[in-house]
């Protein structure tokens, strides 16, 4: 499975990459982008199976990236996990309304990441 990690902080991208590695995902299949615009271009140019994105980023934010993905016929079914420090009710509702598949509040643990990824794919399988 090819995963795209989107975050403007290189440390957070590296942390997510490390934790995904511990969960058994191959490092070779993990790609990185530092904002929504770069991520969207990568998604349109190469096959990605799963997106993990931050919310606050310069350029295109995570929520705008999510909306762009859902608005793109070729990408609209792509599962998106939001990993963010934004924990207010309005933003979580906005993400849900935009069609996010999972939402993790920073800081988080490997166990939480595994749990949310498992849930995302369980729901996708259940939805057929």
């Amino acid at each position, binding site marked *: 499975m090819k995963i795209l990690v989107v*975050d403007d*902080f*290189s*440390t*957070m991208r*590296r*942390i997510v990459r*490390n*934790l995904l590695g*511990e969960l058994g995902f191959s490092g070779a299949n993990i790609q990185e982008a530092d904002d929504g615009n770069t991520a969207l271009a990568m998604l349109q140019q190469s096959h990605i199976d799963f997106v993990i994105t931050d919310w*606050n980023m310069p350029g295109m934010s995570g929520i705008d990236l999510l909306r762009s993905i859902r608005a793109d016929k070729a990408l609209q079914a792509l599962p998106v996990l939001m990993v963010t*420090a934004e924990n207010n009710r309005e933003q979580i509702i906005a993400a849900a309304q935009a069609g996010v598949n999972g939402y993790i509040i*920073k*800081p*988080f*643990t*490997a166990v939480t990441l595994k749990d949310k990824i498992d849930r995302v794919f369980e729901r996708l399988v259940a939805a057929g």
Partner: protein
Amino acid sequence: MSAPDHNPSPAGLPPELQELLEIRDANMFEASLDALFARRQSDLFRALGHLTRDLHNSIAQVTRETAEPPVRTAFARKTLQEALTMSASAAHDTLAMTERLRPGATELRARAQAFAATATSDPSARQLAHDVGQFADACLDEFTHLVEKQSWQDLSGQRLQQVSVFIDKVEEALLQLARLARSIGGAPATGEFRAPAVTTQDDVDRLLSEFGF
């Protein structure tokens, strides 16, 4: 029901009003009333003059602070950026350390488990292999915690960026205030502002006119 009191006691009123109410001569009452109004009006203008002068002083001070290139805000921004860079560097160093050690710990755990599983006649060797395996296992758990804990850098970095944006906004607001002070006060305020004493109504009016009143 008691009849309304048409002669309320003047108790509680300021002495000057009590004195006024006790005057029975109409002309004298009117003259005293005019004098009272004039005194009150003068007090009011004096207070307004002080207030305006304080405001002018404050704006002049801000103008002085921002007349030069905004060195202080630039320094604050630079310091925040340095803190951000250093914390990111420290987090990357820690992550690099765990990335270097993890493969070795994983291999050591596998070899220790394999050795412990083999039939060996030496119980101390078996125990050592078991202990090494447990230690490697604990190290791997701790590496995971170390990685997780580095997310503080991301969070603190976001906060530092928010503070930097806030500084930019404050700086812009101060500059706007300085520009406003220059536009309404004539020449840019430099050096400490010393307002002349406001003693007469003309002084007050002149000062107020500078502020568009």
